[in-house]
């Protein structure tokens, strides 16, 4: 079992052109995190979490982290592992 992959709930805004922008995500412990800024978006594999998807590099509380959109789900890498 792979513990480094954490599926998260994400609140997303769709533009009128259909572009998808994550606004907020809920970590597995229930804490909500507001996304201050989306810095970039590109397809990228995550060897640590195990999977591939569109990687959103986002700023949360002044820290950079990655959110992956994998086909129809969102996941993040667990930091501590």
């Amino acid at each position: 079992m792979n513990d480094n992959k954490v599926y998260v709930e994400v609140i997303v805004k769709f533009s009128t052109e259909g572009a998808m922008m994550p606004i907020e995500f809920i970590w597995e412990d229930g804490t909500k995190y507001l996304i201050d800024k989306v810095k970039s978006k590109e397809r990228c594999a995550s060897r640590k979490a195990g999977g591939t998807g569109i990687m959103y590099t986002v700023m949360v509380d002044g820290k950079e982290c990655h959110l992956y959109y994998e086909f129809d789900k969102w996941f993040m890498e667990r930091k501590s592992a």
Partner: protein
Amino acid sequence: MTYLPLYKDLKAIYNAYIEKNTRSKKRKGENVERVILHSDANCFYASVEMLYHPEYAGKPLAVGGDPEARHGIVLTANYIAKRSGVKTGMALWQAKQVCPDLIFVPPRMDLYLKFSFMLREIYSEYTNQIEPYGCDEAWLDVTGSSSLKGNGRMIAEEISRRVKKELGITVSIGISWNKIFAKLGSDYKKPDAITEFNKANYQDLIWKLPVSDLLYVGRSTNRTLQKYGIRTIGELARTDPDFLELQLGKMGLVIYSFANGWDDSPVSVEGYQAPIKSIGNSTTTPRDLENDQDVQIILMALAESVAARLRKHCFKCNVVSISIRDNGLFHFTRQRKLQEPTDITDEIMSAAYRLFRENYHWPRPIRSLGIRADDLVMGQVPVQLDLFMNEQRREKQEKLDRAVDDIRRRFGYHSVQRAFMYQDKILSSLDAQGSHTVHPVGYFNGR
């Protein structure tokens, strides 16, 4: 046989073709030599599973069929498992014997097809001439994009880097001026490698390879060539083509041309579909078939699938053939010409069952069955009616089949079934059409 005169002076014909193209391209200021890449995803299924299971890093892993459903063979193994002697096609228990630590994961075709699609998305940023060869290999003709994206090696390096970063798997890429040598290049060094065969180095590198490495030199052809002392591709290239033709027929001339690099076949444009020449389905059954009733259930599921696909593509078939493999893995096929072209399920089923009854007398239980519809004609083509066939009844059957197709399209395959199929729910659970997977088309693409 009509092709034979064309091959009589292969080198002259090839040179004339190249000269003609070179002249016209030189006039237009175009690049005169094609740049063909062949990209092959290394241990494709296993690599995808390794990506999704980082906890198995550094361990031997094999993607294997489900032993419960009796598809118990290794589909792909990672390099660690391969080094221990695990080979594609091995039974799961054999693989476990040669590599006791081997980890099996069940196949997830949907996921692999998604990766295959993403690979093609990357390729499509370099060319529209992408010819898939199975779900993990493809030829790309990047001649046109060389001026924008750099030479073949630069494009190959960029594709390789992107696949690794974006998909987390690796590819081996061969570069050459023709498809055959490009494919040899991707097989030459693995994994995660780029090999270029050009006109300056191909004799030193390719001609030393065993002749069995060449596309279309299978076990039987290899045996024939070995018999005459032709062991390397170079030896094949230097053999008299008339002698090869005598021994191997038309294919002798084809592989002779391949060995010399005289291959000008184009890389198909993305989305090209080879003309359909036959439609078939086969299945390994969930349990061994032991009597005629078992066979009827499976044949009916297969006939329904084949006939539905004939109707979907507006074809009728003149020939029905069946393939049988018993549980001792003895395999044979038989075929029969029909009185009239048909796409009616019952007619295909009864032809298949009649073939079965005439040719199989139950020496052993059966492990897998297949039906194929050959000699296809367009569905609307006028046919001479037979005085002794009940055409009214056939028309009714056609209408009935189409109604069933429509119900299944809307509500799913199992929404309407023949009562007959309920005699064995395990066997009749087979959705031959839904589970049908298109396997790699041949190199000749039906041409």
